[in-house]
């Protein structure tokens, strides 16, 4: 096993339950490198996961871990942050968990601007339960519950999250793990609600149902053809049909919720 992974991964939980070539493993790999470079201590961070393939990620990490109900990862993390304001809280969530079942929780956490880092791994499908249509499934994609093609358009995640008041939004893809590591580092350093959307290829369920791909490499090549890296401080080109990757929104003007609460508490005790 890798020497950095040995520092941050619980060996007794291995191997990962992820299928061969799953993007979620790349997210875990980039995440441990980001926290290794930031020098985060094990008692300074807690990881929260809901239900789904992606929500298994905190189970493998050697930090305090809270594995909770489907879609309720963000409210549990908010509670954890409210009683431990000095702790860094990271939420690992899938697209169905975060946008589908927990959609309202996401909107309200973004509105409150509470200091969480949410890593949403979007693989376009409900992978663990066999390939049902998810809120991010592309228009006209074939899944188990939309055999004639998806009639609905997917969520525009950036507009939903930024419109709700999130102060940090970045988009990454598993095909560009070094950019993902840098975005996770920036998200962890940001004080306020940081949302990182990660396009994570699912070679098993999405690969078979949506794309008809035969191998993980084919899925990765397709994702690589759909995305491009945005330079620092560059604006996405509206004429470009590919998906931009990078830190797309940062707002430092809004106050963080637990800071405001602490100030009010101190003022009331005087």
């Amino acid at each position, binding site marked *: *096993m*890798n*020497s950095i992974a040995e520092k941050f991964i619980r060996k007794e939980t291995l191997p990962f339950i992820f299928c061969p*070539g799953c993007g979620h*493993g*790349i997210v875990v790999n*980039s995440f441990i490198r980001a926290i290794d470079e930031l020098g985060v201590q094990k008692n300074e961070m807690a990881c929260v996961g809901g239900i789904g393939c992606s929500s298994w990620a905190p189970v493998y990490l050697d930090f305090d871990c809270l594995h909770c109900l489907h879609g309720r990862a963000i409210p549990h993390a908010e509670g954890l942050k409210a009683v431990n304001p000095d702790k860094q809280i990271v939420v690992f969530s899938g697209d169905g968990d975060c946008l589908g079942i927990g959609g309202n929780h996401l909107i309200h956490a973004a509105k409150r601007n509470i200091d969480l880092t949410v890593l949403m791994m979007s693989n376009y499908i409900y992978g663990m339960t066999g390939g049902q249509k998810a809120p991010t499934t592309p228009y006209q994609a074939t899944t188990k519950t939309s055999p004639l093609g998806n009639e609905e358009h997917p969520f525009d995640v950036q507009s939903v999250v930024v419109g709700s008041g999130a102060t940090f939004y970045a988009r990454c893809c598993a095909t560009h793990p070094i950019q993902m590591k840098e975005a996770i580092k920036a998200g962890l350093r940001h004080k306020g609600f940081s949302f990182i959307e990660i396009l994570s290829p699912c070679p098993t369920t999405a690969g078979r149902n949506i794309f008809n791909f035969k191998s*993980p*490499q084919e899925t990765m090549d397709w994702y690589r053809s759909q995305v491009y890296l945005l330079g620092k401080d560059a604006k996405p080109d509206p004429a470009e049909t590919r998906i931009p990757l990078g830190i797309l929104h940062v707002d430092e003007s809004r106050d963080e919720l637990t800071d405001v609460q602490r100030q009010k508490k101190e003022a009331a005790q005087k």
Partner: protein
Amino acid sequence: MKITIDSVYCKGCLLCVGVCKKGVLALGAERSKGGYLMPYAKEPDNCIACKLCEITCPDVCIEVTKD
């Protein structure tokens, strides 16, 4: 360069083979503990230690060390 691939946790997805621009890794004949055919370092002299295979491996089982 010395490239070690963990034969216990490798699932043979071969993303490391695809990501290497120098053609260092290739599909081998050895099987991992899970029964998957594993990659091996075919041309270790070409390796420039960019460590892209290390960070891409979804099962965190590749280690590149300079010797």
